[in-house]
C-alpha cells in the first residue's frame, strides 16, 4: 500500500472511530440481511463467518414456536465465562434468535415458516433489542420497534391445525423480561443453560473455549458437577430437576430477586432453595383475579389448589403467566408442573 492510501486509511478510520464515539448508538439496519449474519439464502440460516450456533438446556415456551439461536462475535473477540449470571459479551457482539413454525410438526422435512428474528446487540452503552419480522416469501425480515401481530397456522404433532395470532413484542416489552435490577440483560447465555452435552458427547462450553469463542472457563470445570438446568424435554431426568428447570426457564427471568417480578416475593430461579419463595404456602401479593380463588402459590400434593398452575393453565391476559410471549397453554409444561406439585410433600 502506498503512503497516501495509508494516510487516507488512517484518516477514514479516525472518522469512523470518532463517529462511533459521538453517536449515542448505532442506527439499526432496516433489513436483517444487511447484517450479514447468514450466508447463502437467508432462510437457510447458514451462519456466516463469526457466527455460531448454541443450544440451551431448558427452552422458554413461546406458543410452540421453535427457535434457532446464534451468537455473532467480532473477529478476535470472545465471550467471558461467568459461573453465575449472563456471560460477559464484547462490544459489537450479537445474540440472534430465530422463531419459526414447522408447517407440520410431525414432518419437519416439509418445511418451516420463519416468523421473527430477535437480535440483542451489545453496544457501548449496553444491550439493545431489535426485532425483525419475516416476509411471506421468506427472503428477508424487516425491523419493527413498536410490536406487531399477524396470523400464523401450522399442523401440530397430533395432526391438528392450530391458528394463532402471533405477537411480536415491542422493544419495551423485550425489557419486560430481559431485566436485571432494571438493566437490560441477556437471559439464556449462562452456565446453567449452556452447560450441555452436544452430539459426539462433547460439552458445549468446553467446545466454545477450545474454539476460542469463549475464555475464562476454569481448567477444573466439570460439566457434570457445574450447576446447570435439566433438559426438561427428556423424561428420564428426575421430576424435580425437570420441573425446576422448566420454572427457571419459563418464569425466573422475571421471578427472581433482581427481576421485574421481585415485587411478588415469588422466586422461581433454580438456585432458590427457600420453599416459601418458590410459592409453597405463600399467599399472593398482587395476583388479583390471577389467584383463581386459590390461597397459595403452591400447595404440596394439590396442583388444583395451586395458583402457579392456575396461571399456567389460563390464556386470559389478566390471569396467564408468563404475561408476555404466551397465548397458548403449554400442555406438556402444565403436565410436568402438575405432576411435580402432586408429588411434593408439605
Amino acid at each position: 500500500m502506498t503512503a497516501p492510501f495509508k494516510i487516507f486509511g488512517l484518516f477514514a478510520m479516525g472518522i469512523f472511530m470518532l463517529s462511533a464515539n459521538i453517536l449515542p448508538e448505532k442506527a439499526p439496519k432496516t433489513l436483517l440481511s444487511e447484517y450479514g449474519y447468514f450466508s447463502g439464502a437467508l432462510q437457510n440460516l447458514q451462519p456466516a463467518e463469526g457466527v455460531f450456533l448454541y443450544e440451551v438446556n431448558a427452552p422458554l415456551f413461546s406458543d410452540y414456536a421453535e427457535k434457532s439461536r446464534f451468537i455473532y462475535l467480532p473477529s478476535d473477540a470472545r465471550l467471558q465465562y461467568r459461573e453465575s449470571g449472563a456471560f460477559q459479551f464484547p462490544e459489537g457482539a450479537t445474540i440472534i434468535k430465530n422463531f419459526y413454525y414447522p408447517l407440520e410438526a410431525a414432518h419437519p422435512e416439509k418445511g418451516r415458516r420463519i416468523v421473527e428474528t430477535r437480535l440483542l446487540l451489545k453496544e457501548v452503552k449496553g444491550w439493545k433489542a431489535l426485532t425483525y419480522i419475516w416476509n411471506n416469501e421468506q427472503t428477508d425480515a424487516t425491523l419493527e420497534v413498536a410490536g406487531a401481530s399477524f396470523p400464523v397456522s401450522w399442523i401440530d404433532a397430533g395432526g391438528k391445525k392450530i391458528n394463532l395470532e402471533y405477537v411480536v413484542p415491542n422493544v419495551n416489552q423485550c425489557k419486560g423480561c430481559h431485566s436485571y435490577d432494571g438493566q437490560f440483560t441477556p437471559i439464556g447465555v449462562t452456565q446453567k443453560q449452556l452447560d450441555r452435552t452436544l452430539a459426539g458427547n462433547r460439552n458445549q462450553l468446553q467446545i466454545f473455549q477450545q474454539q476460542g469463542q469463549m475464555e475464562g472457563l476454569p481448567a477444573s470445570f466439570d460439566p457434570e458437577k457445574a450447576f446447570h438446568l435439566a433438559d426438561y424435554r427428556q423424561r428420564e431426568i428426575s421430576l424435580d430437576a425437570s420441573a425446576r428447570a422448566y420454572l427457571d426457564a419459563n418464569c425466573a427471568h422475571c421471578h427472581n430477586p433482581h427481576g421485574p417480578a421481585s415485587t411478588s416475593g415469588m422466586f422461581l430461579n433454580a438456585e432458590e432453595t427457600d420453599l416459601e419463595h418458590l410459592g409453597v404456602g405463600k399467599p399472593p401479593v398482587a395476583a388479583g383475579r390471577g389467584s383463581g380463588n386459590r390461597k397459595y402459590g403452591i400447595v404440596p400434593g394439590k396442583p388444583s389448589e395451586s395458583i402457579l398452575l392456575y396461571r399456567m393453565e389460563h390464556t386470559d391476559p389478566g390471569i396467564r403467566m408468563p404475561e408476555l410471549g404466551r397465548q397458548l397453554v403449554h400442555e406438556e409444561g402444565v403436565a410436568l408442573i402438575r405432576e411435580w406439585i402432586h408429588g411434593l410433600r408439605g
Partner: protein
Amino acid sequence: MKPIFLLTVFLSLMQATVFAQSDVEKKIQTQLILAEDGETINLPAGTIEIGGTLSLDGKNNITLRGAGQDKTILTFKKQTQGAEGLKITNAQNIVLEQFTVEDSKGDLIKAQGVKGLEFRDITARWTGPPKASNGSYALYPVQCQTVRIERCTAIGASDAGIYVGQSDSVWVTACVAKNNVAGIEIENTTHAWVWKNQAFANTGGILVFDLPDLPKKQGGHVKVYDNLIGRNNFKNFAPKGNIVGKVPPGTGVMILATNDVEVYQNKIWENKTASTAIVSYFISENPIKDKQYNPYPSRVYIHDNIYSEGKRMPTWKSKLGFIFWWKFGKKVPHILYDGIENPDWKDAQGHIKPEYKICIGPNENGTFANIRADKLGLFKGKISKDKTPYDCAF
C-alpha cells in the same frame, strides 16, 4: 443523521397490512418508545381502543398528557395482550395527567422502579358493576421513589383503587376512591402522607399494611389525616387468596402490622364493622414463614378523628364482622385493637415498652375495644373497653 430519525423512517416503511394494532395505539406506543428527555407526549381527545399494554421504559423527564379526564379515554376493554393498561418502568421524573384509563385485564396503570412519579387528574376505573373479574389495582406504583398522586379517581378495583407498594416518599391527596375492595392502600411503604382524600363505598376505605415475603420488608412513618372516609360497606368482591379478601365490609381505616402510623383529623362515618382497626398479621390467619417479618403493629397513634354517632350493624359476611356482631351487637366500638402483643416488646412487669405502644388520643365518639384475640385468630372472650393503657401520644 440521528438514529431516532432513522427509526422514524423505518417505521414509516412498515407494511400496514401486517399489523392488528390500531393506528392510534401504534402511534402512541411508538411515541413512548422514541420519547426523548424532556418530551411531552400529548394523547388525543376521544375514546381510544387499546389492545395491548402501552409501555414506557428507561426514560427521563417525560410527561404523558391527555386532553382532560372526560376527553381522552383509553379503553382496554378488548385487550388481548399484556395484563396492564399502561406500564412505566425504570424511569425518572414521569408525569401522567389529564386522561382516563379503563377496563384493562389486569392493573390499569402500573409503575415500577420509577424515581419521581406524578399522577395528576387521572381517572382509572372499571366500568359496570364492581366484580371479581376486574383488575387488581387502578393506580399501582411499586418499588418507586417520590410518588405524588393528586386529584385522581379510582373506581372498581378488585384489590385496591390507589395502591402504593414497596415505595418511599409518597403523597396521596385530593383523590377519590370508590367501589373498590380497598379504596387507598399503602403497603410496605415508608414515609407516606395520605390526606384530604375521599374514600367512599369501598369494602375498606384506607388500609396501611405491612406484609411478609416481600423484598421491601418494612413500611412505616405513614400519616393519614383530613380524609373523608364514609360508608365503606361495599361487599368484598376480591378474588380469594388476596389479603384484601379478608377485609370485612364496613372497614374505615385498617392498620395491619405497620409501625409509626398516625391517623388524625379524619371524618370517619357509617363504616358498619370497624371504623378504625389496628391489627397484627395473625388476624389474616395466614402462616408466617418470613423470619425477618414483624407481624405486630407499633407506635400507632389515633387522635382527633370524628366518628359518626348512632348504631352500626357489623357485617356477618366475614369472621371478624360476625365476631363483632356476636360480642357487641349493634354497638360495635369505633376503634378496635386486636390486642395481640409481641412478647419481646414487654418490660419486666409485662407491659409493652413505651416505644412500641398503641396510643389512642381524644376522638369524637371514639369508643374503643381491645378484642384480645390470640395468635390463632381466636378470641378469648375477655374484651376490654378500658382505654387507659392506650392513653398516650407520639
